[in-house]
């Protein structure tokens, strides 16, 4: 039992749950809550994106597009057409899943740089459509969004949103861990390492890649829908190319093929710019320096590198206390 609690899976989920529960003691005002919610939403996107990038080894430079489609889909259906927000969100999610499925097949046949270019193009097309179809989207000015409500009950206030996003993040991490520790998850890691090796044991690599692409798009879309309702406003900024890069950076920074790494990456890189405002004009430079430093000194990303360090120290301690060695 104790051993199960200490396993990376259960232990990690418990640690994340504890962090979510204890964090409010440190959040002294609603500004901090706001950042924490932002962290949570980015983390949900990153956990999904990490399945694609870290586990299956397929790059996407267009995930801000799926985030944006989720945000705008919810905003348009709920605010312009008066749909109940939950129905708007579910419909949007399904539509994004369908889109990811349709474009995933041809796109994921590409590899490496070509895949990067294709996903980049997809993100740019989504961005262009959103900024030019201003009749629906409000163009560059954006669109205001009604608050999220279920029946008569309206979700308002940072505190309530904090708990909702926290619970959803925990759920997203749980789903991701379940996927990874399943035959399908092993298939993803296998095709990351050797696609032909995976194919000859019966894995339909193309199909598996599309599946994980759709899942990661759905995670991004749901986070986008929630972000729209929470902030009450959507602008094209979060759909832009730069946001896609930010998301990939969070995944790489936290550690590829580490679900908790994706959460840590999202947390650090979402909070850091807020903390760095003390550096005023030098903010972006310090941010860049932190990024470069991590990649040089912790090339596998923060969480896997630290995990490995701990492992080595434990082994070191074990061999020192072992009289045979």
């Amino acid at each position, binding site marked *: 039992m104790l051993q199960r609690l200490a396993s990376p899976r259960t232990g990690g989920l418990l640690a994340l749950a504890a962090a979510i529960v204890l964090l409010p003691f440190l959040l002294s005002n609603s500004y901090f809550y706001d950042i924490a919610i932002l962290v949570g939403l980015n983390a949900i996107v990153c956990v999904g994106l990490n399945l694609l990038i870290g586990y299956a080894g397929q790059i996407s430079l267009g995930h801000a597009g799926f985030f944006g489609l989720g945000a705008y889909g919810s905003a348009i259906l709920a605010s312009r057409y008066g749909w109940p927000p939950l129905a708007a969100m579910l419909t949007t999610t399904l539509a994004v899943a369908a889109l990811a499925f349709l474009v995933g097949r041809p796109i994921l046949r590409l590899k490496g740089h070509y895949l990067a270019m294709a996903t980049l193009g997809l993100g740019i097309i989504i961005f262009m459509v959103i900024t030019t179809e201003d009749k629906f989207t409000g163009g560059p000015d954006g669109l205001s969004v009604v608050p999220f409500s279920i029946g008569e009950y309206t979700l308002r206030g940072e505190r309530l949103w904090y708990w909702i996003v926290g619970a959803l993040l925990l759920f997203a991490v749980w789903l991701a861990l379940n996927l990874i*520790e*399943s035959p399908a998850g092993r298939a993803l890691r296998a095709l990351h*390492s050797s696609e032909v090796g995976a194919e000859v044991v019966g894995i339909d690599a193309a199909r598996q890649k599309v599946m994980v692409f759709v899942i990661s798009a759905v995670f991004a879309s749901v986070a986008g829908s929630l972000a729209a309702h929470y902030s009450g406003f959507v602008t094209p900024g979060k759909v832009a190319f730069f946001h896609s890069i930010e998301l990939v950076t969070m995944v790489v920074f936290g550690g590829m093929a580490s679900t908790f790494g994706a959460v840590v990456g999202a947390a650090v890189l979402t909070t850091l710019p807020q903390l760095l405002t003390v550096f005023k004009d030098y903010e972006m430079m310090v941010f860049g320096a932190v990024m470069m430093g991590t990649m040089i000194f912790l090339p596998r990303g923060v969480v896997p590198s630290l995990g490995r360090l701990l492992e080595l120290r434990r082994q070191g301690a074990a061999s020192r206390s072992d009289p045979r060695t």
Partner: protein
Amino acid sequence: MSLLRVQGLTKKFGGLNAVEDLSFDIQTGSVHSIIGPNGAGKTTLLNLLTGVYQPSSGKIAFEEHDLTGRAPHEYASHGIARTFQNLQVFFNMSALENVMVGRYMHERCGLASTLLRGPGLKRAEKTCRDEAAELLRYVGLQDYLSSASDSMPYGALKRLEIARALATKPKMMLLDEPAAGLNPTEALELENLIGRLTERGVTVVLVEHNMRLVMGVSDHILVLDYGRKLAEGPAQSVRNDPKVIEAYLGSSVPHDGSFGKDIAAAVTIGVEMRR
């Protein structure tokens, strides 16, 4: 009935015919070796027989099913498994997980029960783990049950690929130079393992340069040269075929026959000369 039937198989790479108009049958239960000098087209042939390459022309039928033009995973689902000359181990996983991946076709379940981790999946995972461990022991990798694959020596990785291929529960297994890089002891163990594979009911197709191994295990041998069939038949008759010796040694074969008629010796020397 033959297990595998190949008819008029050709693979062109630009102007080069790596495999040319090749026809042969493989019978159930046999060890069928494919030999030939470097560049003869043996690996290309295995890639064709597992869907990794698509033939330029010709037909491949397995148990009377026409598999020509199918994807590799479809070949796998019909019961064809293989190993690779240049290892295709999943180096981002443990040895055990590599073999667990091999059980994919027999474990996979719906997306919903995967994501929600139902009790059925948990049980299946335990069985998968146990059977993978059993297969590691079967191929003699009991010392690597908890090893990361990227920390294993070359010889062990070769056997890991065999265990992974076995995990698919194949009817036919294609081995591409399984003895390359093995020391004599390991090669002997491999010979023993191939014997046990056939006892298990797996038909083995062996591509190999180690003639001691080939002559030790083969029922039937197919000799390729420049992508064409040079000779084919029971092991005994092929080993005495002068055409075969000539192909291996080129013009350096003494016409007075002073190398003797024993291809096993001649070929071993020939291969050593080329390397």
